[in-house]
């Protein structure tokens, strides 16, 4: 049991480090496309590791299946979102949408 908890702890810590990497990339990378690249990949690996850690910890096949489903759907959502946002970032390099104005003094 202890070995399992150790494994789960390792996976959780590894997962959160990937989330940290994604956030660092989001903050430090120079343009929208590279930020997108850093964020989506790192976050999905992080989510996978955290899901595996939780699956090990939960010890029930049903929960593990649920976690797997969540991760697969997250992959799908991230793929589509990243593709759409990347297309948008390519199509338009202007800093803000036209028609953008501050509406409060």
């Amino acid at each position, binding site marked *: 049991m202890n070995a399992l908890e150790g494994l789960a702890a390792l996976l*959780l810590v590894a997962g959160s480090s990937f989330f940290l990497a994604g956030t660092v990339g989001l*903050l430090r990378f120079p343009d929208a496309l590279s*930020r997108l690249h850093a964020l989506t990949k790192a976050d999905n690996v992080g989510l996978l590791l955290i899901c595996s850690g939780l699956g090990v910890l939960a010890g029930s096949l049903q929960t593990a299946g649920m976690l797997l489903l969540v991760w697969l759907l997250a992959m799908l959502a991230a793929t589509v979102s990243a593709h759409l946002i990347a297309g948008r970032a390519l199509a338009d390099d202007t800093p803000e949408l036209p028609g953008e104005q501050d509406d409060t003094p």
Partner: protein
Amino acid sequence: MTVLLPAVVVFLLLNLVAGLWRVYTGPSAADRMLSALLFGSTTVAILLLLAQWQDSPALRVAALLFVMLAAITSIAFVAMVQGGAARRQPATRANGTKS
């Protein structure tokens, strides 16, 4: 485990706070949407961790709903800007790759 799970949750929340900076500064609309993406995936991870820690399986269903519907806002965003007045010609789009 009773210490590690909340610790990871706190860590991810701090991560989110850092990510908020990108929504704040932008500079482009795509950047802001990108951070919304970060918030989606991190929130899912936090919900799953809370489900385990608080022993509340229903939160996993909430996480499932989150990932299912996370893409909708992105689609609305793209539909909005591409369908709007800011629509660019395909030629401009190809030029955009230079950056």
